[in-house]
């Protein structure tokens, strides 16, 4: 485990119209670690990770103050190419969202928009990414089937593979198991732990056991504020803030 800081969040305030959704957030995200964002609904944790690949750009009437530095470079600087950023910072969403295309086409999409058309390369990269996402054995014989015919858990692993295929460095998971059954959840969790060797990972989760199982660092958000950030173990066993303690011990949330 390294202590190299990959992403540095400095004095971030974020507004949806007049609503102050993130209040003066400062945080470091370390390389090759899983950092979990926990907190009750509407606390700003999803908003927070959507800043890191600038997904919030797509939402109208929002304002941002502060900086998010990825490898020392503020991603909100005017000279930053959002497309480039999103290739570096991949994202997996709450609900599996494969495209209504075949499994293979889903995998190729991210490569094709980067101008890769060579079938052999497409196929090789697809295989590598599907193997990494532990889905290859289940789908290798039916790559041309519609992705929507897969089960929910398989779809989510396909979405992870689709994200991996463009070779990102950071992966954002926005409640990746929220719509999955326990067995599929387990598979995704194992996968996330496996992936941290090669990637820097942020996971938003409602499920505190999940945060405890997979993350090394955890951040507790409440009403837009980052209340506490530290090693997951400390957050769960020895929180400094009363509100964190109340939340992790299930007194509210």
């Amino acid at each position: 485990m390294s202590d190299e800081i990959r992403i540095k969040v400095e004095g971030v305030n974020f507004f949806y119209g007049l609503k102050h959704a993130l209040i003066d957030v400062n945080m470091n995200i370390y390389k090759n670690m899983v950092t979990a964002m926990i907190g009750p609904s509407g606390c700003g944790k999803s908003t927070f990770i959507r800043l890191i690949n600038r997904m919030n750009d797509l939402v109208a009437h929002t304002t941002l103050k502060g900086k998010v530095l990825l490898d020392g470079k503020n991603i909100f600087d005017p000279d930053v190419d959002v497309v480039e950023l999103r290739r570096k910072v991949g994202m997996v969403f709450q609900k599996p969202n494969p495209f209504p295309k075949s499994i293979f086409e889903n995998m190729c999409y991210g490569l094709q928009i980067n101008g890769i058309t060579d079938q052999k390369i497409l196929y090789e990269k697809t295989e590598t990414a599907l193997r990494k996402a532990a889905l290859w054995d289940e789908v290798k014989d039916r790559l041309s089937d519609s992705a929507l015919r897969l089960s929910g858990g398989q779809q989510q692993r396909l979405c992870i593979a689709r994200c991996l295929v463009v070779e990102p460095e950071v992966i954002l998971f926005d409640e990746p198991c929220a719509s999955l059954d326990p067995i599929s959840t387990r598979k995704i969790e194992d996968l996330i732990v496996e992936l941290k060797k090669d990637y820097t990972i942020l996971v938003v989760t409602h499920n505190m056991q999940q945060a405890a199982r997979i993350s090394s660092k955890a951040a507790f958000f409440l009403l837009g504020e980052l209340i506490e950030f530290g090693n997951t173990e400390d957050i769960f066993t020895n929180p400094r803030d009363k509100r964190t303690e109340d939340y992790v011990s299930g007194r509210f949330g």
Partner: protein
Amino acid sequence: MIRTRENIYKWIFTVLAFSSLIFLLGIIVVLFVESIPVFRSTGLFKFLFSRNWYPTNEANPEFGILSMLVGSFVVTIGAMLVAIPLGIGSALYIHELAGDKQKMYLKNIVEVLGAVPSIVFGFFGMVIISPFIQQLLKIPTGQCAFTGAVVLGIMAIPTVCSIAEDALSVVPKAFREASFALGANRWQTLWGVVIPAAGSGISTALMLGISRVVGETMTVLMVTGGAAAIPNSIFSPVRPMTSTIAAEMGEAVVGGQHYHALFAIGFVLFVITLVLNLVAEIISRRYRLKLGLDL
């Protein structure tokens, strides 16, 4: 007492619900029965593929609708060439580029265009577009297939645009987000994800646009010139099927061969629009399945 009343209501609404079906069946039966005599005397093949339409020749009347089929076909194709780019283009603009406010105004404007009575379009085509085209291209008459196609194409824009826009807007937001998150830009997302996902919905829009054009009567009667001959260019006058019925029904002797021939044209038209609607329905059903939506 209450139960009897409920039963009565139930029956009333059942009858109302099935009334469309009853009307439809009635129309099909009448069209078909009234068409039989001409199919029998002329033969279906000759009826469809002979270009000789001499319904009032007393000694030897002939009923071949090929020139009308061609007329309808040419005008429809031309109209779609106008309606597809404009209709789909405006749907894409409304969906993708317009802001909320603009979107609201544009959608309403398109719908108002759809509410303009066809006679008004016909009038507009007859007194403005047709003379304009005549002068511009220096052709003998502005009442030709081209004018018909332009006017009908404009008429079909609302149908094409609003159905295509609906199709685009039911594409789940999650697909767009997934595409953006992979580093796609707006156009890549539109072409690579949104349009394919809405593709069948968009083709439904085209089918229904076509069926609107094929069935249109008043406008074609007013702007296409009405020559029952196979056009040798898109600037020749043509007479689509609908305007033949409208123009000749008044003078055909009830119960005569001519009268039956006009019914038969109606029957052919009905079959064409029925097929188009069925195709549209099948495509849209498939598309909802593909998106994983309920039917």
